[in-house]
């Protein structure tokens, strides 16, 4: 397997506080890497650095030999890093279809002056976009809600929509920030299947932050555990479950309850 994203020694300080220290990973193509850890461990901060929302104080992020640090978030997206957010960030006043179409802006070839006149070429491009979006929605079973306002979707489909929207970017790496937060067991299973399908169908590389262990363990190839900004453990699910440092970080020591 090839390394498609090389993260070395990412550190970020906010004033005197070190939020993340020395985070490194060589993300392999097609793998599912999970980042877990107690609340406040710095997991989302890592994501924010990997998508250009924060600039690390030191460290490098390299994709195919290109250093991405200092680029704006939209450029990170253009380079193939798509994400979902811990708190759902859909375009709430837009329809499901439009939410997806907005992720196509980057690749769209529509020009401004033809758009003003709504030329035949523009209409054709709009039609083709619509067809492609419907196809994507159909794959993920959201096509029936295509014309609903995204804010009117139930919680589960909203989270699903965020993932589908990120997929529209045709990313190389999908970063999912707590995709099953607040879901019941049935919904969690659905998202787990969704993720498996994405991996099979698109050979997608995925980096995942989650707290639900019975969701993470079966899905992850590799897990990194963060606590207070530092990586305290790394390995495959079996190793992590047995790791005493991990157990202590979550439960304060004295229990072996993660099973």
């Amino acid at each position, binding site marked *: 397997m090839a390394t498609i994203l090389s993260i070395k020694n990412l550190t970020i300080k906010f004033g005197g506080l070190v939020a993340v220290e020395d985070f490194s990973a060589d993300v392999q193509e097609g793998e599912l890497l999970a980042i877990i850890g107690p609340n406040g461990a710095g997991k989302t901060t890592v994501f924010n650095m990997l998508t250009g929302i924060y600039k690390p104080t030191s460290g490098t992020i390299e994709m195919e030999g290109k250093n991405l640090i200092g680029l704006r978030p939209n450029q990170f997206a253009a380079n193939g890093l798509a994400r979902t*957010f811990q708190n759902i960030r*859909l375009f709430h006043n837009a329809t499901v279809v439009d939410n997806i179409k907005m992720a196509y*802006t980057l690749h769209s070839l*529509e020009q*401004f002056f033809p*758009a*003003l006149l709504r030329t035949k070429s523009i209409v054709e491009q709009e*039609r083709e976009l619509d067809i492609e979006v419907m*196809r994507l929605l159909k794959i993920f079973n959201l096509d029936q809600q295509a014309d609903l306002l995204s804010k009117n979707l139930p919680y589960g489909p909203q989270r699903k929509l965020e993932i589908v929207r990120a997929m*529209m970017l045709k990313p190389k790496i999908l970063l999912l920030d707590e995709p099953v937060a607040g879901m019941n067991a049935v919904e969690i299973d659905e998202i787990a299947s969704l993720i498996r399908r994405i991996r099979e169908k698109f050979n997608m590389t995925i980096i995942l932050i989650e707290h639900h262990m019975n969701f993470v363990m079966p899905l992850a190839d590799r897990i990194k555990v963060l606590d207070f900004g530092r990586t305290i453990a790394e390995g495959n699910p079996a190793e992590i479950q047995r790791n005493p440092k991990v157990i202590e970080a979550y439960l304060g020591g004295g229990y072996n309850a993660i099973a």
Partner: protein
Amino acid sequence: MKIPKHLSKSVLPIIGFAAIYGLIMLLKSFGIANNYHIQILMFAGVNIMMTLSLNVVNGFTGQFSIGHAGFMSLGAYGSAIITTLLLKPSVIPSSMQIPVFLLSLFIGGLVAALVGFLIGLPTLKLKGDYLAIVTLAFGEIVRAGLRLIEPIGAARGMIGVPTYANLAWIFTFVALTLFVVRNVIYSRYGRAWIAIRDNEIAAEAMGIDTTRYKIISFTFSAFIAGVAGGLYAHVVSFIQPDTFSFVKSSDLLVFLYAGGSGSLTGSIVGALLLTALPEALRFLASWRLVIYALVLIIVMLYRPKGLTGGYELPFLRIHRKELYEGAADPTVPEAEEGE
């Protein structure tokens, strides 16, 4: 003959507009409508264009521009310089008057757009209220600057702008503005703007270069405002810097939000109604503005989303279904088998 739906969106409204115009002309010939009414309508038309322009930036892109009168004045003076100082009626053949007029409007729009672009570059990085105050400052600096320039009349203003604009021209330009703004909203640009408005961080994360699209929005909006300003100059014949003050900018804000921001119909309704209202209330003398103020407060308290509440007239919206009419394969994508 069945008109294909997407053409019926363009043809029928044009017929509608022409019919309304014809009706007004008819009323005028019967003496029911007089020049005063026509002038109110012309002002309303200019205000509709200005409100649409503000809608692009404030309503659709979610930015906070409160100095838009500045663009209007740039367009007004820009076009007036062409028709009143350079290509005066006395130096051009009368057959050239209309082309010169149209050229002047284009130049007015261009001047405003250029300034909008230059202002937009550094300032659109500012957030919310800070952007607002800078746009306010911009509007006032333009006004103060115009007051200093002697060749265009300084604070006294410019007189003798030829009255090339008539109701027909205003109707035409309003229709044209509605047409292009509607079209651009239902394209990748409009969607990018709405994404920026709804969730700027997500928009960036989804690959939208928010600064670029904000600048496009601002520049496009400034162009429309400039053309509207040019039309205004050629209606009133006398322009002065103080007409385009923060008072005018706040009038435009009122038209936009009382009508309904993010809605093209709202801009029409807001501008039309609130231009006509103070005139209709003239019989109240000094109580006129008091009542107007109360109406405004009541509208905002009870219809906070604006009078139209987000409703859009049919010819001003485009549903994705319409993309499939007149196409080679007119079926809207149905559920595919398996997968």
